[in-house]
């Protein structure tokens, strides 16, 4: 048995789930549950930060590793959790009856995600993968508008289950090719087509989580139909975990890289292109963001296919800053879609008058997604491209940069609606204090990191070192 203390961050989150569960069972109101959960989330965040430098193995050797890499991504997950929870307070798109359950689901899913980034054994990994998904499946189904919500959830879960089935099958092939389930040991065995095929199949579930082509198609439908808060969480914390596990798999478990890199390269380019092109045509904001997520998964893959420590660091950096950036965008979605409906571009009209704070949040979010300085999105893009060039992928950078330009078009269109169109009949929007705090917090993260990327970057670097070194 290892040092169980290292499990404290996860344990805090699990405790949060339990507390929230108890609170909902004893029949506390949704609001009280929310406040308690928020406190727990803050605690969990603090603990996670405290354990940022932790290192070691809390359980049996080889199955669960706590290192700089896992801890940093856990921070990403809990920050996503915290931000989402802050917004859940005046939640609207989730049906009344289910509101007390939301924190539980969020906590459980976060717990799964945190485990996911630490798992170094395939069964653990698979269990964590499933665990992190179940909460999201249910969350997705809780939409106040049940017709859309159920469709979104059904697609989500069926797609997810199918791809997890493929993943499992892939794991079984890996097991067959190597006779082991420890990631570290897999890399030691000689490469064989069976192993590579197994790894490819095993990646399915993860690529599904990350919404990479060809596993991206659920994203727009689910984003569109699921409750805003659920989508926010899916788009933030879940991405961090997915990148974490993908990086872990690639760097730890793969004996031969060329094939995998080539494959991922194809998927990376396809994701960027399809994501960005499809996003152009969208009117529904959530759907637009879903496609943009697909494209961003492509950008992150650029960093990963560079397959260097630098590349891993840039991918980690990108996904970390991606959390507050995309949160900014979803915060606006939540605030605008207070009645549960999906905000479209038209409902952004005159946002600059109806709520200057929301407008600027949207601006920061969109510029962040587009990678415009001084947001952190710019530095993220810069690092990723540098990493790719460092690995000699000049043309990939070019394709990535072209995509960034295409994406700018639809981001600017969103900004245009918010800043140009007169408000017409639409009234002012009042934000709850917690929402406002969340907005300021996220913006501060985006801008401060944008101007001064050093702390986050150094964390990402140490994470990459831990990843590549071990």
């Amino acid at each position: 048995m290892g040092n169980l203390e290292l499990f404290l961050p996860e344990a805090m989150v699990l405790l949060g789930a339990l507390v929230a569960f108890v609170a909902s069972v004893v029949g506390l109101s949704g609001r009280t549950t929310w406040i308690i959960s928020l406190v727990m989330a803050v605690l969990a965040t603090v603990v996670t930060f405290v354990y940022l430098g932790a290192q070691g193995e809390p359980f049996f050797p080889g199955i669960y590793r706590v290192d700089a890499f896992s801890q940093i991504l856990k921070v990403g997950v809990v920050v996503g959790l915290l931000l989402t929870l802050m917004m859940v307070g005046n939640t609207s798109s989730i049906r009344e009856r289910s509101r007390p359950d939301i924190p539980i689901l969020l906590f459980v899913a976060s717990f799964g995600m945190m485990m996911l980034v630490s798992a170094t054994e395939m069964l653990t990994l698979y269990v964590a993968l499933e665990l992190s998904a179940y909460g999201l499946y249910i969350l997705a189904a809780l939409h106040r508008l049940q017709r859309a919500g159920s469709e979104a959830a059904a697609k989500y879960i069926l797609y997810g289950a199918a791809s997890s089935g493929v993943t499992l099958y892939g794991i079984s092939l890996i097991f067959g090719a190597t006779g082991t389930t420890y990631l570290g040991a897999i890399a030691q065995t000689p490469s064989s087509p069976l192993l590579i095929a197994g790894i490819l199949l095993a990646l399915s579930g993860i690529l599904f989580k990350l919404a990479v082509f060809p596993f991206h198609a659920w994203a727009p439908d689910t984003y569109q139909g699921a409750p805003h808060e659920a989508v926010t969480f899916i788009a933030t914390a879940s991405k961090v975990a997915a990148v974490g596990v993908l990086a872990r798999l690639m760097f730890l478990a793969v004996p031969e890289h060329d094939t995998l890199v080539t494959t991922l390269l194809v998927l990376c380019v396809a994701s960027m292109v399809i994501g960005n092109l499809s996003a152009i045509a969208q009117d529904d904001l959530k759907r637009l963001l879903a496609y943009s997520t697909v494209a961003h998964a492509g950008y992150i893959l650029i960093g990963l296919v560079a397959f260097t420590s630098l590349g891993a660091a840039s991918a980690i950096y990108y996904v970390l800053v991606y959390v507050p950036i995309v949160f900014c965008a979803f915060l606006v979605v939540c605030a605008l879609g207070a009645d549960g409906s999906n905000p479209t571009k038209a409902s952004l009209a005159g946002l600059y008058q109806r709520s200057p704070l929301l407008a600027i949040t949207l601006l920061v979010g969109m510029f962040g997604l587009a990678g415009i300085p001084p947001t952190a999105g710019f530095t993220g893009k810069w690092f990723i491209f540098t990493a790719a060039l460092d690995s000699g992928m000049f043309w990939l950078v070019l394709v990535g940069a072209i995509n960034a330009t295409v994406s700018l078009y639809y981001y600017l269109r969103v900004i245009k609606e918010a800043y140009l169109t007169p408000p017409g009949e639409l009234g002012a929007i009042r934000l709850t204090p917690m929402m406002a705090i969340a907005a300021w917090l996220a913006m501060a993260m985006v801008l401060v990191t944008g101007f001064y990327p050093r702390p986050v970057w150094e964390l990402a670097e140490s994470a990459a070192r831990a990843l590549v070194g071990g």
Partner: protein
Amino acid sequence: MTLHAWMVFALTLFCIGLYGVIARRNLIAILIGIELMLNAASINVLAINYFVSPEPAVGQIIVLFIIGLAAAEAAIALSIILGVYRQRASIDVTLLEELRG
């Protein structure tokens, strides 16, 4: 039966499951297809464990986990399918095309 045969069998099962997922219109049938895929993986693991792995317990543990997870997944999926049925009085997957574009 050899390992090879078992793996071919598992592959066949997997493909049948996949076919079910892709081709059946009934949501429950799709779910069953997914279960088949999981089972194919289980069979693989067991066979490999039997023929290859030095540790006999590993495969069995994995399969136990798979069964548990599959059950949980099925439960959630069924509840969601129930939600679909409430809204549309049908569990035909082709009706789930309102979110698109």
